[in-house]
């Protein structure tokens, strides 16, 4: 009996949900995408600021940067999420409310999600950017100084653009992880792909089918991102005058797939 029920895979339900997903599922998918993209965008900006603070000659600034990374990297995302969304509201410090941005309703939980993911990710980004900045040869600083650039201009026009080349691969890895981590946003009730999937599961009892559908959609997202990442890396290489012996984007992607580590499938 048990075996028989385990083998009941409703393939018509599966294909239907996969090929023509419901509007609410697509809504969840869309939220997963834009929450990740916005959080990553803010994380890069905040992370750059924190990285520069940690490289500053100012001791207090270095200390603040170090403390920020220590706290945000040292506590679980899930805990941060609950503190930001429920904790702040419970103590009356700040309560997120639904707002309308350019006529689009943004849920309170979605705002809290973007803020928390951005803050959490910015700690990791700052370390990635710090490593990227350190990887730029000191001779580049001096060459820029020698033509009269101020230290701020040296950073802006010479060091940061070059650090990008070292930052993109680990940034891509982190963004890949973040898109998947949006699934934990369900605990504060963000109607993203995972929560919607759970709802469909509990109303249809097709748990296995619908979660395989969700897994495939997550896989589509991370695959699209790895194509975008390859494209960015190729663009940067070209802007350095580096041509990879006529290797096309697809050839580059094939090489990445052959090396599972580059897709983030294997954790080193």
């Amino acid at each position, binding site marked *: 009996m048990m075996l028989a029920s385990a083998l009941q895979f409703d393939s018509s339900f599966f294909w239907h949900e996969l090929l023509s997903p419901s509007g609410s599922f697509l809504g969840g998918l869309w939220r997963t995408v834009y929450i990740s993209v916005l959080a990553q965008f803010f994380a890069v900006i905040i992370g750059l600021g924190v990285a520069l603070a940690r490289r500053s000659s100012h001791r207090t600034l270095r200390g603040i940067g170090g403390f920020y990374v220590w706290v945000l990297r040292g506590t679980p995302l899930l805990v941060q999420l609950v503190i930001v969304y429920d904790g702040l509201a419970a103590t009356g410090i700040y309560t997120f409310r639904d707002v309308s941005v350019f006529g689009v309703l943004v849920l309170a939980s979605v705002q809290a999600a973007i803020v928390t993911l951005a803050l959490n990710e910015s700690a990791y980004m700052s370390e990635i950017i710090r490593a990227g900045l350190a990887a730029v*040869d000191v*001779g*580049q600083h*001096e*060459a*820029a*100084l*020698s*033509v*009269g*650039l*101020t*230290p701020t*201009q040296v950073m802006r*026009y*010479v060091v940061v*653009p*070059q650090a990008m*080349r070292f930052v993109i691969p680990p940034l891509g890895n982190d963004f890949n992880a973040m898109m998947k981590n949006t699934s934990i946003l369900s605990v504060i009730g963000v109607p993203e792909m995972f929560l919607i999937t759970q709802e469909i599961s509990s109303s249809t009892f097709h748990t296995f089918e619908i979660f395989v559908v969700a897994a495939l959609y997550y896989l589509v997202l991370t695959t699209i991102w790895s194509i975008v990442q390859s494209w960015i890396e190729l663009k940067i290489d070209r*802007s*350095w*005058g*580096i041509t990879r012996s006529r290797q096309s984007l697809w050839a580059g992607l094939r090489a990445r797939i052959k090396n599972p580590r580059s897709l983030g499938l294997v954790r080193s």
Partner: protein
Amino acid sequence: MIGDGAPPDSSGPSVDDAELILRTVDVRKSFGGQEVLKGVSLEVARGEVVVLIGPSGSGKTTFLRCINCFERPDSGTVLVNGHYIGSKVNRQGRKVDASTREIAHQRAEIGFVFQHFNLFPNRTALENVMLGPVKAQGMGKEKARSLAIEQLEKVGLGTKVDTYPAQLSGGQKQRVAIARSLAMNPALMLFDEPTSALDPEVIGEVLTVIRDLASEGMTMIIVSHEIGFAREVADRVVMFDDGQIVEAGTPRDVFDNPVQPRTKSFLSKVL
């Protein structure tokens, strides 16, 4: 800029120094308790070519780096074209440290050519040369572009304008680096072993460019191990040893009739 308001000339160089492009007085520098420069004073006149020689670790490169304040001297004075480098005169007429912004401004009139070129790899030859004029001097893009093309043609790279450093030979890279410095219209050019990282067959093309600059009257200080070149191009050869200038004179004096035993022993090794 604060430094521009009160010209340092009042308390700095006297009228007699009008033709002096560089004057350093008792420049000292230590790294971690080790004194690398033990009071170096040197004057270089407009249009003069000075070649610094000496064993490695003798302080030649550190001295060069103190002139444009890559290293801030622990004490002593550096004046280029009548302006303090790394310091300024405050309202009370006292000499104080300049801010990093002010130093950036002071540095603009000093060209620096590195042993390892240090071209910006993500910029074409043209963009490498344009960066300083556009960002440091606020020059318009079009004007900077024609200036950069002119400088690249001058070093014989008019056809490599849109080429990235990765596609240039070492000699070509160094020539772009020289053009990059020249575009700032410097009063003084500093060369830190400009041919040491080059393959023997391309050294000549870089030396030719430096030779041309010398004949045009550019004031230059060159750290070099190319004794033959120094003999030909230098007005004065300065021998460093152990953080001090031990001997200076015309190439003929220093190379053919060295007085100091340390110069003799150094030359016997490199000649």
